[in-house]
């Protein structure tokens, strides 16, 4: 981003602050330090301590330390972390970022996510890779939400944020209305690593907005691991319930 764009962004943000109203109930925000009003802050289902050790979902199956999904399926990543559950409120937040163009919300929540990652005893992260959009989609939306979230994360995790290394080669249709199987088929071979050299032996943090069935993260993890990455973590804002 050029300095000129940055100044434009600062000016726009000071006249039209994107966190002037509560994301969820539109109440005017005055004393709140978050993008939610005090009441809606409690309505968002923030993920607590007892989570699946693999994917970070707030769900534990039986006497294991994993969720149902992680008990029966193998994932192409080491561990993941999420900020809140993808409930009705969670969905609204993600929509505000993606479709209302609320980049600042993405960054602010990314910042929170970064602070949470810091409390984990993860290996040193060598690079942060946002899950890419297909160039057509990014042009249409004007920005990539994962990139904004990743920018927020870099406030506390000072690893390089790398763009255009993990790329989307296939413009896949929206995932929303598909089943788990269909999603996996849909996303297959959608990603590729541009420069294999750069990922060899590296510990990588993947960043995305939502983790529902995990097909996107898994597919990205697969390409990266195939490319020789040492370890892949992921961080998302919202994670599905089941």
């Amino acid at each position: 981003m050029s300095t000129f764009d940055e100044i434009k962004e600062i000016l726009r943000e000071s006249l039209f602050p994107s966190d002037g109203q509560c994301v969820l109930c539109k109440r005017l925000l005055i004393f709140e330090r978050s993008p939610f009003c005090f009441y809606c802050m409690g309505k968002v289902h923030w993920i607590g301590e007892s989570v699946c050790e693999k994917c970070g979902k707030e769900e534990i199956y039986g006497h294991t330390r994993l969720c149902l999904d992680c008990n029966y399926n193998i994932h192409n990543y080491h561990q993941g972390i999420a900020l809140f559950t993808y409930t009705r409120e969670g969905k609204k937040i993600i929509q505000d970022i993606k479709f209302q163009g609320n980049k600042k919300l993405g960054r602010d929540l990314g910042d929170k996510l970064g602070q949470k990652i810091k409390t984990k005893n993860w290996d040193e992260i060598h690079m942060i890779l946002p899950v890419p959009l297909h160039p057509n989609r990014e042009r249409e939306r004007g920005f990539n939400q994962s990139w904004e979230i990743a920018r927020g994360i870099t406030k506390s995790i000072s690893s390089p944020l790398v763009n255009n290394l993990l790329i989307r080669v296939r413009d896949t249709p929206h995932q929303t209305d598909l089943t788990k199987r269909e999603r996996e088929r849909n996303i297959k071979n959608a990603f590729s690593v541009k420069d294999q050299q750069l990922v060899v032996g590296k510990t990588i943090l993947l960043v995305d907005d939502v983790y529902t069935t995990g097909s996107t993260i898994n597919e990205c993890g697969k390409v990266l691991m195939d490319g020789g990455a040492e370890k892949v973590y992921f961080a998302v804002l919202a994670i599905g319930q089941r």
Partner: protein
Amino acid sequence: MRRPLFNILAIYILGIILAKIHNYILIIILSIILLGLILLYRNKKLIFLLFFFSLLTGYFTGIIHINRESNLSFLENQKVLIQGQVIQPPLIKEDKIEVYIRTDKIVKDGKDYLIEEKVLGNIYFYDESKSNISISEGNIIRFQGRIKLPKEKRNPGGFDYSTYLKTKNVYSTLSIGEESVEVLGKKSLGMVRDNAFNIKANIIKVIEENLSKDHGDLLKGIIFGEKDLDNSIRDNFVDSGIAHILAVSGLHVGFLVSFVYFITKILRISNPFKLIIITMVLAFYIVVTGGVASVIRASIMTWIYLFSRVISKKYDGISALSLAGLIILIPNPLLIFTASFQLSFLAAFSIILFYSPILEYLLKIRFMPPVIGQLLAVTLAAQLGTLPISIFHFHQLSIISPITNLLIIPSLGILLITSIGGICFYLLTPFIGKYLFFLAGFIFQWVLKIAEFFSSLSYSTLSLPPFTIIGLIIYIFVLFIIANYIPIGIKKVKRISFIVLSILVIIHFTILLIPRPLKITYLDVNQGDSAIIETPNKITILIDGGGYPEYQGKRKISKDVLLPALYSKRINSLDLVIISHPHDDHMKGIEELIGEIPIEAIGVFDIDYKYMNDFIEEIRRRGIKVIKLTEGNIIKVDKNISMEVLSPKSNAIIVDEQKDINNLSIVIRLDYNNSSFLFTGDIQEETENTLIDMEKNIKADVLKVPHHGSDTSSSEVFLAGVRPRISIISVGESNNFNHPNPDVVKLLEDISIRIYRTDKDGAVEVITNGDWIRVRHYIN
């Protein structure tokens, strides 16, 4: 930081206030703190740097504007011949025409001064009720006038006329006799203004042709804010709490924009054109209303709103208001001290803050129609936010205004739409225009009826003393709790809020209950006497009330000085009022107070005098106690405070109306522990000698010098008897009596430590606990 613009505005305003109260120490401290923050928080240094600049900009622009002076001040109080151009449409008032003039040439004693300056000319009517001259904007006029420098705040609660005019870039005024005004010709004021005023003149012509005088004046008042209304109608609007529709405000801009928007929608005008049309209409409106802050504010906010739609961003009222504030205040920082700016911005601010929360409450009421809920919410929000300010400026609160506004605001909308529609159509097809005006007539009648009906209700307004600072904090705190901005639904917040609120309330009442020192304020009532006494336990006494001479016409000293001073001291009733003697410059103000503020008792001399007897009868009828004061009376006022009447004896006979009545002034010595005050009215040498002959105890620390410092009083023997440490001369600036006499002043200078004169020092406040005495005066 959520709203940097708001913070910048707040800090900028703080800078201006510190400039106004000359507090450079606080500026230095705050600058150091901000510089420290810049060094400490490296990642936020940009915003702290901006704060630092805002503070200094506020302070220095404030200083620059406060210190600006007229280039004509060397001609103060001189009569000169002036030639200049009328730059705004003249405003016709009750007894004068107010006109802003740009001077070209000033002639004094045959010498020409080429000074260009904007001045305010007051052209006084020759005949009391009507003027014989017709001038309009653009006219080049020549006239004789006396140059005056506007007065700053001279009394507690007083109006700072000088600062007010500075916000209009005016630094001197002219008193002009109507007969000397000559119109020499007409010159352009620039294309934009020529056209705007031309359109305005045409609109006014259409209004005058189609509406009756009352209705037409009302419409002119509503559209252009010209207060050229019949007095009784205006009083009705004030009393029923809807006077704000007569002052152009954001509400008017709102109606105007909605109307234009509606028309452009009907005509299917494309978006960019819509923007251009609205911009032009707003620009026109700003020019014809004389660029008042409220219209500019609302226009800027409208533009920001439309702009937010163009770039599809969320509109944020507070940030938009803050930007408007900065745009308006940077060239004109002193505006923050004017009532109209404060009301306009606070109304807008509290509508942004409280409209939705109030609406939420109102819609919980069963059977509440949403439209009525919305209207009530707007009015209530505006009123709650402006309440402290409007009490501070106007000392009263309209209780019925939510109801009257509920009835008036929709009518106002319809009225404006039919009238503006009428004006537009009249220019195209007069027939439809006439018909619309005919319809508007009914709405005018309805509006006037509402105003008349509601103003006739008694108890429609409450007189209230201004908020104390802690009272104000409590008020705002409670508002924020009610509006749910402080979330007391959360247990911890609830507990903390409760504790904080209780502590504030306790502090508030303890402060009110703590006895304070005795305070005596010698007001500047021009040529005349008036002093307010406030005792430690809140007993309030007024000695004399000043009074304007006959030729000042309808002006009232009570409205100008007494009531504002009393209200600003949070006094809303008087325990005792003493009239030293029945002369206009002491008594008229008190006569004006009757019925305006509750008075427990009035003390007068015990002498048979027709004028006084009539007055006594009148006040007795109103249920005010009358106390006849004679020599030897002692009044216990408060703990350790008493007043002794030293003169006159009862039943003296008046031969010479002027001199004898002066000499029969009530003379009072007030004692509080070791300090004493002497009030002497207008006694002259004769009574002074009697007091000495009778060996009365006239020794006092503070002397109100007899008879405005005239040479008929303050004899050497008398002053030697009083031996005042502080002498106060209550006297009018450049009065016709040559008071005070220089010899008397000289004598006083020899005897007392300090002399204060209300003509030079403004009101003088003397504070004592019975031992030490402190003096504060209002000018320099």
